[in-house]
């Protein structure tokens, strides 16, 4: 009888531990946020011109290589696009019009606002991939969660 009670207690305890661990796992997954990009290690470092050319040559291959990867891109700012809540920095190949555009993460919007056209900057962000724009008739590559590298 005593052995049975001990066994029952152990089973209940194990059940509670499993339930708490499961709930903890679920809570962790559902409350998890993306790491601040400034603290992420870049998978690739490349200049804007080379990146744009790689997408122009073969965007399927380039998407496989770069999409959802953290990339540091260096280049000249050709345009700063501001709207109510957004500041996007653009680096374009002025010959073809193809471009890479960087949407900054919330905590780095202030530094993005200080960037001027013609500045040479290095920006780290999550590459969302590129595509040929039917509207612009050029290749465009987009980034999210961006920050200036120091």
């Amino acid at each position, binding site marked *: 009888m005593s052995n049975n009670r001990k066994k029952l207690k152990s089973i209940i305890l194990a059940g509670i531990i499993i339930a708490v661990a499961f709930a903890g796992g679920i809570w962790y997954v*559902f409350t998890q*946020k993306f790491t601040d990009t400034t603290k992420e290690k870049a998978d690739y470092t490349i200049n804007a011109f080379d990146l744009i050319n790689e997408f122009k040559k073969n965007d399927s291959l380039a998407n496989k290589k770069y999409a*959802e990867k953290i990339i540091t891109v260096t280049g000249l700012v050709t345009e700063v696009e501001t709207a109510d809540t957004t500041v*996007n920095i653009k680096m374009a190949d002025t010959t073809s019009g193809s471009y890479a555009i960087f949407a900054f993460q919330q905590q780095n919007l202030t530094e993005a606002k200080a960037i001027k056209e013609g500045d040479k900057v290095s920006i780290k962000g999550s590459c969302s*991939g*590129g595509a040929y724009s039917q509207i*612009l008739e050029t290749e*465009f590559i987009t980034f999210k969660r961006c920050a200036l590298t120091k």
Partner: protein
Amino acid sequence: MKKTILILALALSSATMFAQKKITTSGVINFNATTSLDPLPKADNKTVVAALDTKTGAIAFEVIMKSFSFANPMMQDHFNSSSWLDTDKFPTSTFKGNITNFSTVNLKKDGTYPADVRGDLTIHGVTKSVTTKGTIVVSGKIIAANAAFTVQVADYGITGQAIDAGKVTKEPKITVAIEFK
């Protein structure tokens, strides 16, 4: 002489065509599929390419689907996965349509004008006709186009257990905010 006139005419014609098309590469689209069971499936896309023909009211936009930025990494993975939007296979979504009452919008006068929008929305490789009401806000040289509408995910071939379980709404709200300068 004739050649010079022809070149001038062509130059003027292309200048006029260029002037009547406003373009931005920083439009914003918000996607909200949250339910009372799950507040996570919502995202912003801040790098939307959009064009407005200020002569005809033709309006178009296109997005790279992986540009939708979620707060939660797991939700972003689900959104892009082959069982949902399958963004490797269908990397972009597009809208091509018209503001059907564009003749009532006075782009030379500041104000907020109601806009009836009709066009074809392509998501997940499926094209459906949509109609919605929005607004055009004219402020100096800036034209802001705003609209909010819902889509039936099933219409675009998007199904799944999370939708059946009520964790993702069957009718996500799509909010479009595009500023043409």
